[in-house]
């Protein structure tokens, strides 16, 4: 809020007052991602729902296959988290990566990516969704994204840790290493 305030102070206008008079009702109900029903396809073309890993701890995030820099880093970050988790818990942990690129990331393209990045698709799923589903899933995960004219995507990288019922326990924007908050959420009973 402070920074936003600065923006409008610089603007030198009473607009800030108008902004501040807006009561944001941010009381969130306990919400499971599994309240959302979206049709996805996994890297082998199988129809799945977001609750494909219901009953397990799941890390969910969004990416796109042709991303040059940050998206490989997302996969590395998820791996770093996995590495920090002890054996049995690691076996129980699942990863769901939903593509933002509904045009190019077909199941075949996702399968190719999984193979080239040596992703074990027994515990990880790379999923395709249509553009409307992508928009709703991103909204539910608080992921901002925008398709750029050259076909790339500009997007925030937020990893959500879900409990067995699909409730978002913690969200992390940290890349490159295992966020302790995420580790705590995964390790919790």
């Amino acid at each position, binding site marked *: 809020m402070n920074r936003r305030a600065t923006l409008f102070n610089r603007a030198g206008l009473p607009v800030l007052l108008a902004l501040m008079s807006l009561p944001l009702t941010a009381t969130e109900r306990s919400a499971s991602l599994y309240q959302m029903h979206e049709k996805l396809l996994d890297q082998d073309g199988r129809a799945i729902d977001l609750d494909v890993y219901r009953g397990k701890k799941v890390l969910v995030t969004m990416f796109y296959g042709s*991303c040059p820099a940050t998206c490989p880093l997302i996969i590395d970050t998820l791996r770093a988290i996995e590495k920090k988790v002890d054996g049995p818990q690691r076996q129980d942990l699942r990863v769901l990566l939903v593509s933002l690129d509904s045009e190019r990331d077909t199941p075949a393209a996702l399968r190719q990516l999984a193979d080239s990045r040596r992703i074990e698709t027994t515990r990880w799923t790379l999923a395709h969704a249509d553009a409307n589903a992508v928009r709703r899933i991103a909204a539910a995960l608080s992921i901002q994204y925008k398709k750029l004219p050259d076909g790339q995507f500009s997007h925030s990288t937020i990893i959500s840790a879900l409990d067995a019922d699909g409730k978002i326990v913690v969200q992390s924007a940290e890349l490159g290493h295992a966020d302790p908050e995420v580790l705590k959420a995964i390790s919790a009973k």
Partner: protein
Amino acid sequence: MIRACILMALTLLPFSAPGARAVGLEVPIAGGKFESVLPPSPKEKAADVPPFRLDVALVSNADFARFVRKHPDWRRDQVAGLFADEGYLRQWSSPTEPGSGIEKQPVTQVSWFAASAYCEARGARLPRWHEWELAAAASTRVPDARNDPEWRQQILDWYATSARGVLPAAGASPANYFGVRDLHGVVWEWVEDAGSMLVSDDSREQGDPNRNRFCGSGAIDLEQKENYAMLMRIAMLSSMKASYSSNSMGFRCASDAKAPR
């Protein structure tokens, strides 16, 4: 004619604006190249806005009540918590009734998910930011009044007095050049790409640490910094999560232009 002029003077509603179209549920807007406060990419200043159709008025409480009765999943007592916060429709007298006196007012306290579902049920969608901004750039007389200091001041005066008192009925404000009403001075409005505004707090600063959070080009920088009214909208939209509701956030629907005959 004389009577009409007196009426105009009294209400300041220029019904006979040269460009105004016939009033209907929605109006066609040609679109085209549009210089937005939010450029499509750092390299391109102008957004390409394909032809679209936009609701003339904001969705009213009565409209939304009809939707909720038909789709009980969106009643405030049945909605999934993922899709709406505690404030969702709490101003209504019951889960299916707005209550007397507010039927014609724009519906507020609706989440992005609920607004999207409403439009989808109508075979429409929420307007995209560039569509909304293009429509809202019009005064009653010209399609793009953004460089008119007088018009700008009028908009800012509206914002300074908005969010106070009782909302006017949906569709009560004067039609702009495109025939669209309520774009300024009534409520904020959800847009389809509210999750794509990509304006982090520091996006105007050099060496922005938040850039690391973004894949691709990083946060898009804002243009036209003098266009405060639009920047405020963007600040508002990017501060709202899709499940949030606010007593000053409403919506209208849009759709793609019908294929040419």
